[in-house]
């Protein structure tokens, strides 16, 4: 067993209105970042876990996303796995 670091990003799906993103977009525009076209606000989770391999860690993290970490009705997620340096 080795320790891995799962980096998970959860964002609202494109069809879902994201008022937080719109508010941040307005904020950036008021700071004169006129080039910004869109902002989506999601969340990031760092999950340290034990697994036999990177593939197994990835699989476990995907199951965690489906069951709890994301609500797939309104959110999409992305999982990356790195070797944990702790």
């Amino acid at each position, binding site marked *: 067993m080795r320790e891995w670091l799962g980096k998970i990003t959860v964002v609202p799906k494109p069809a879902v209105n994201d*008022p937080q993103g719109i508010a941040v977009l307005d904020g950036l525009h008021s700071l004169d970042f006129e080039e910004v076209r869109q902002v989506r606000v999601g969340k990031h989770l760092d999950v340290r876990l034990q697994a036999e391999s990177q593939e197994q860690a990835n699989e476990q993290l995907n199951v965690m996303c489906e069951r709890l970490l994301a609500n797939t009705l309104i959110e999409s997620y992305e999982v990356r796995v790195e070797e944990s340096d702790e």
Partner: protein
Amino acid sequence: MKIGVVTFPGSNGDTDCMEVLRETPGCEPVLLWHKSVDLEGADALVLPGGFAHGDYLRAGAIARFSPVMREVERFAASGGPVLGICNGFQVLTEAHLLPGALLRNREILFHCAWAHVRVSSTRSPWLAGIPEGSVLRLAVAHGQGKYYADGDTLQTLQERRQVALEYCDADGNLTPKSNHNGSERNIAAVTNESGNVLGMMPHPERSTDPLLGSADGRALFSSVVSALAGVGR
């Protein structure tokens, strides 16, 4: 008639629910801690409002795995009447006992106000005693109450008469202005397919005294008592 009110860590509507149930004739309320795996013979269940488990991750996402929820799921599957109010509604959608999800309000703001809702389906035992088309004045207090479901689901909900309450003006018209949080199709409450599980964003338990603005919420609690008495549960 025993009605169980579930308390999660962070619930804040439970005592108001207990209060109104105590005042409802024929009703004996019982408080159930979220770690309980015994519903103590409850004939109906209320999941109150609040911020269960701090609303961490997503509203209702952690509460859904509280030990009591397995019993709530079993109770709901057996046809028992379940009412989720506000945060309780969010818990029921996360638990897949109700379709859809509750998103952040359209304007991000937390809404604490009075809202009118039209009773559009009385399939639920919590609404069976109220004439269809009635307009209720109920308290709302939420930051994430914008009802969302995809187009096909919304279509199905309306065809199967699962849309229970809709935001409207005082005369019962479904106007964009009365849809204060930006919910799809003005939806304020939905039921599951068989109608026994109802989730609603407005607070009937905070709308129980004319002195405080409205007593329209009482009708839901007396309705479920009559419905249960009728089927002899």
